[in-house]
Each structure stands twice: as C-alpha cells, then as structure tokens.
C-alpha cells in the first residue's frame, strides 16, 4: 500500500503552513521529513494520518494494506500518548478492543507486540513507573499490535535522552528491516533521518514546500557499519546546507514573534 501526499496545502487562519506538498511513500519505504522549526512537518503528518483536514489537496492511499492490518496508518507520538490509568498490557490492547478480534486473538497480538519491543516483563506496570524510553516502547508496541502498513512517527525520540534514543533507533532499524512496514518519520535530527530513511523530504521554512528529496544510497544494514559513517555524515552536511539559512531565519522569526 502506498501513501500519497497529493498537492497538500494548509492554513491555520491567516497563517499559511504548508504549500502544495506532494510525494509518495511506497510500500515498505521509510521516508523522513526534515525542515526548519515551524515548517509544518507535524501538521503534514497529521494530515497524512487523517487527523487534520487540509485546506486543499488530500492524502491518498493506493493499493490494499496487508490482510491482517487493523489500522493501516498508525501513529507513534512524540509524547507517547499513553493512558495513565491503564497498565502496559491494557495500553497495548486499547486499539484492539473495538475490533472483531476475540479475547484470545487480542491476547496473542498483545503478547507478540510486547515480545517484539522487549516489554513482556512489564505488562502490569503503569506508565508513571516507566522511564521515557520504556514509555515510547509501549507506544511502539501499541502501534505494532494493530499490524500497521505504514507507521507515522512524529519526532518519536525527541523527548528522550541520547542513550535511549540510540537504543530505540536500533529497535526501529530492526522493526523496519524486513520491509514489511513503511514509515513516515518526522524529525529535527538529521542523523536519525539519515540512519533510518530511504528518502529524505526536505521542507522549506513556513509555508513548507518541498525543497528537495534526497535518496539515501545505502541499505539500513550498511548504515550501521563504521565504514558508512563518513558517507552518512556527508549526507547530513548536504541536507544541513539546504536548510541551515532557513533554520536561522525561522529561529529569528520565533525570537521576534
């Protein structure tokens, strides 16, 4: 199943946020969206996931999701969005409660999702008892439980410390390794984008337009090797040179607002 951003523009009142953004995320592909602060990355993700109605244009799907997918477009949120009154198991089961699955099937999917994220021993723990990294693992586990075709990740690591980010990045690489699941990954962090994405969509400052789409010329497995570090760094520098001046302008705009 492909996800298509078809000439999407959006305004919040008089404020133009996105301007004619078009690209396609093919089945199993990981596309990162980067750009200066306030360029509309998160807004674009909300529109792609059907949580926000664009002013013009539309998000579209082409093809069918996998037969077992209960929620083809599934979000992983920056702030985890866990129900504080539910334990880990209940949080992961939450999106399955309204489906046709039997209790046994739900249980099996929850068990599988918890196992894939290393949370099996924490199933009765409440979110407030978990570290930030573990909370995000619960968010990822909940997303996996519905067998998504495409993960929509809104800066999923930005609220975490650098060590936890590194560990979760390894998890993402592993989860996306077999190409069975695509992703749109919104981030400020160019290193994360270069490490995870097959293509990187670079947005201009507000209103966000596509400045460039950069392909990452390595497999994700290759990117984990030491020899690839130099190439990845060069790629990050290339993208940074595209957005640096606009990021400075955007920062000044925030300071003067």
């Amino acid at each position: 199943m492909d996800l298509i951003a078809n000439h999407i523009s959006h305004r919040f009142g008089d404020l133009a946020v996105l301007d004619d953004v078009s690209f396609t995320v093919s089945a199993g592909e990981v596309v990162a969206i980067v750009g200066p602060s306030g360029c509309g990355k998160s807004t674009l993700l909300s529109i792609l996931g059907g949580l926000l109605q664009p002013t013009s244009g539309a998000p579209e799907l082409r093809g069918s999701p996998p037969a077992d997918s209960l929620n083809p477009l599934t979000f992983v949120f920056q702030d985890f969005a866990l129900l504080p009154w539910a334990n880990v198991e209940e949080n992961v089961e939450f999106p399955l409660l309204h489906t046709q699955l039997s209790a046994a099937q739900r249980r099996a999917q929850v068990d599988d999702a918890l196992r894939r994220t290393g949370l099996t021993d924490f199933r009765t723990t409440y979110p407030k008892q978990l570290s930030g990294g573990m909370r995000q693992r619960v968010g990822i586990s909940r997303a996996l439980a519905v067998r998504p075709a495409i993960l929509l990740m809104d800066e999923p690591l930005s609220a975490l410390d650098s060590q936890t980010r590194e560990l979760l990045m390894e998890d993402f690489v592993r989860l996306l390794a077999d190409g069975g699941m695509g992703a749109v990954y919104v981030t400020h962090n160019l290193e994360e984008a270069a490490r995870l994405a097959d293509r990187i969509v670079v947005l201009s400052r507000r209103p966000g337009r596509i400045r460039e789409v950069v392909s990452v010329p390595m497999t994700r497995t290759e990117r984990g090797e030491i020899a690839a570090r130099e190439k990845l760094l060069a790629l990050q520098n290339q993208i940074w040179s595209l957005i640096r001046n606009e990021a400075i302008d955007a920062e000044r705009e925030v300071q003067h607002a």
Partner: protein
Amino acid sequence: MLDRAPAEVPAKNEPARRVRFRGAGFVPASSRFGGWIALAFVIAIWQAAGSAGLVNPLFLPAPAAIARAIYQLAVSGALWQHLSASLLRIGVGWLLGTTAGVVVGFGIGLSRLARSVGITFISALFPIPKIALLPLLILWLGIGEEPKIATIALGVFFSTAISVYSGVDAVPRNLIRMAQSFNVPFATIVRKVIWPGALPAILAGFRITASVALLLVVSAEMIGAQYGIGAFVLQAGNLMQTDQLLAGVVILSVFGLAVGRVINWLETRLLHWR
C-alpha cells in the same frame, strides 16, 4: 562586557569550608496523629474550663455534656429519627442532582450545541443561593419532602455539571487524538478515555457537592421540617438547649467527616494510577 574581578586562588593550606545547606523547608508533611492529638488537646482544655466553672454552660456546654446529650438522643431513638430523615433527603437529593449534573456536564463537555446553550444557563443560575428557591419549590411541589429534596438536587446539580465539564475539558487532547488515530468509536473514547480522564475532577466535585448537600439539608430543615438534624438544631436553639444544639452540630460534623472518608476511599480505589 561584564567586568569581573579575577578569581582568587586559595592557598593550599587554607582550610575548606562546608557549603551551607539551603534547601530546607517548603515541603509540608502532616504527621499521622498530629491532628488527632491537637483535637484531643483542645477538647481537654475546653472540658477543663467547663469543669472549673470558667465558662457558662449555657453559652458553651462542656464536651462531656454534649456527649451525654448525644447518648440520650441515641437511647431515646430521636437521633435515628432525625438522622434518617436528613440522610434520606441528602441521599435522594444528591443522587438526583449528581445524575443530572453528570449527564449535562458530559453533554456540555462533548457537544458544541449543548455547550453553547448549557454554559449560558449554568452561568446565569449557578450563583443563585438555592435555599432562596425553597418557598417557590414549596409552591410548586407542595409541603413535604419534595421541595427539600429538590433544593438539595438543584444545589448539587450545578456544582456537579461544572466539575464534570471542567474535567472533560481537562482530558489531554493528545489521548483523544491517539484514540481517533486507531479509529476507536466515539462511545469507546468516552468510556475508556474521557471518563477516566475526567474522573479526578468529578470526584473532587463530589467532595464539594457533599458539603453543599449537607448545607442545604440543614437550611431546608430549619425552614420547614418536623424531623431532621437541621430541625433538631433549630428547635434546641429556640429552647436554649445548647448542649442539644451542639450535639446536632457534632453529628453534622461526623457526617461530613464520614462522607470525606468515603470519597477518599473512592479516590484511592479509582485513581490509584495517579
């Protein structure tokens, strides 16, 4: 540029000074028995003053006299007669007001139409002292239990509706968006996200409405009732039986404390995740 004096280099043999601790205070923690000890102390002083004849028992009867009055009330059966009448009024009035308040509060919290209409009416009617409506309610509902129960229900309704819709408004929007992103149906979002999210505010509202109900039952019973703690207190006051009067006040206080305990228990059970 900031001008600073060059840093002094301490002599190697200069003795080190300990950094003074400045982080004390501003963390009030109540001791478990402190309040009870203070209460017992005040009662003991009060009793001692009464026994020594320092206080006229007509103006302030000693605690032992109040305890005797409560005992006599209990033995004579009058305590239960008055208490049951008050409890019935409070129970029915509170349940009616709470049910209506929860329904209307959720309506205002979830529906644009209900919000625009409901908030206007609640803002206009909430400040009215509900006891002022008792004569009108007697006119509408007749002399009997109905106007007293209706007064309590009205008082409880407005506070409940406000605490419910405030609680619904306070549910983090990211949780609702999360549920929507998984195509969770509206009714399930209300049941599994909004209800538990609003519950802390709703229980806090119950604490307030229990006090409102107690206040209104006493006022209503003072205006027109034969039985009830309010009627009993008024009657004792008219007869200058101040020990009986204070016995009624103590019973009201114990009732208020008991309701507070029940709500504490509910909070512990239902909000254990906090």
